[in-house]
């Protein structure tokens, strides 16, 4: 669905998404890489439970929430990818265990 502009080439960065190895370009946001990797949705709404994915790509809509390196519900569009990063999709409502 998304294709890269040829002039955006930078160095390679490898990380895992849901346990699978994925290679992106230096400077990509996690959300950009998710879209390139074919993820239309990356979480379920905390209110309705319906699937949601990256939308505004600029930190406003909070639709692209994923777990990054063990921290839940981070905005994927605001986090640049990094070597060895672990991204987990598919989360729903955050659980608070009293």
């Amino acid at each position, binding site marked *: 669905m998304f294709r890269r502009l040829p002039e955006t080439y930078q160095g390679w960065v490898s990380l895992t998404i849901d346990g699978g190895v994925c290679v992106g370009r230096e400077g990509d946001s996690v959300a950009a890489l998710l879209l390139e990797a074919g993820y239309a949705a990356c979480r379920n709404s*905390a*209110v309705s439970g319906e699937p949601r994915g990256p939308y505004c790509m600029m930190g406003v809509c*909070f639709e692209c*929430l994923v777990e990054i390196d063990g*921290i*839940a*519900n*981070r905005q994927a569009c605001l986090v640049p990818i990094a070597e060895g990063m672990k991204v987990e999709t598919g989360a729903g*409502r*955050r*659980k*608070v*265990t*009293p």
Partner: protein
Amino acid sequence: MSAFFDFAVIGGGLVGAALARGMAREGLSVCVLDEGDVAYRASRGNFALVWLQSKGINMPAYANWTRRSVELWPAYAAGLLNETGIDVSLQQDGGFHLALSDIEMERLIAVAEGVNGQPGVKPYPYSVLDGDEVRRRLPGAGPAIVGGTYSPLDGHVNALRLYRAMHKALIAAGVDYRPGSRVARISHAGGFSLSIDGGGEVRAKRIVLTAGLDNARLAPMVGLSAPVRPQRGNIIVTEKAAPFLKMPVQTVRQTDEGSVMIGDSQEEAGLSEDINSGIMGVMADRAIRMFPAIADLNIVRMWACLRVLSPDGFPIYDQSKTHPGAFLATCHSGVTLAAVHAAVLAPHIARGTLPEEAQAFHAGRLHVPKAA
């Protein structure tokens, strides 16, 4: 275009929206002149409690007025749902004030006894709880809690949905809502003439000032007085979490959609809406001592907003002696009082009077010299 309205309401926040809808339902033609979202909008920044306990020390009329509104709220929410299809998620299962030290606990008890011990106040039901009882009633409450007070009459709503529902109800009631209309001047000759910033004029037989902080500027134009000042409050909002907090605490609540809100700071900072990170830190620390598990939640938003505060902290409801037909309504508890504003205050103002229960709130009470 020179429509002549029965009423012009100046200010489209929670107070103005409640009054305008109520007056339109009395069959009057009503126009709302609203500055718009560039305004210092307390209605968009509030903490969304529908709250009774602790309110009304030194002013029994305020305790009773608040009680009346809290009791009217279920019917008000049902009416909004009926008119707009929007459920404002009113929850009135009770609420807590919590203490993190013995001194705070003594203060909570003193306030509860102080309000309810006043002549003329119908005492509200409440219980004084020790730390273990709080922890039994509120799963997730931490060991740092010394105790608290609980009242079954307290609750909260979804404030954003409330504001939207109130505006949708305005339109449904036939009110002429005009955003981007800051009133520059008011003149009075055979009715009121309101000149709008940037051009234009609106005429009305009578007017109500519900402009929050801007009432201080507008009131003297029609022989009224509104010595209100801004008081800054900070609010922290976390990501949405599965429901764990069953009832609201005065400074910590979980919304119907799962966000945890932490609030209730009070600062004198003029018209600055900057957030204060020192105060935010203290608020977060206190909230975590109350509910340790929320320490893991991400904070997604913080904001500061300005309360509209009179010198004694209570509302001002007044009508002008020199400019008959000019009314003033201003308060800082626009959510809690929305129901009584819509159901009681609006029909009275529509008839050109103030209700008996609101008589004590005239601005004249504030014009007494300080004791030497």
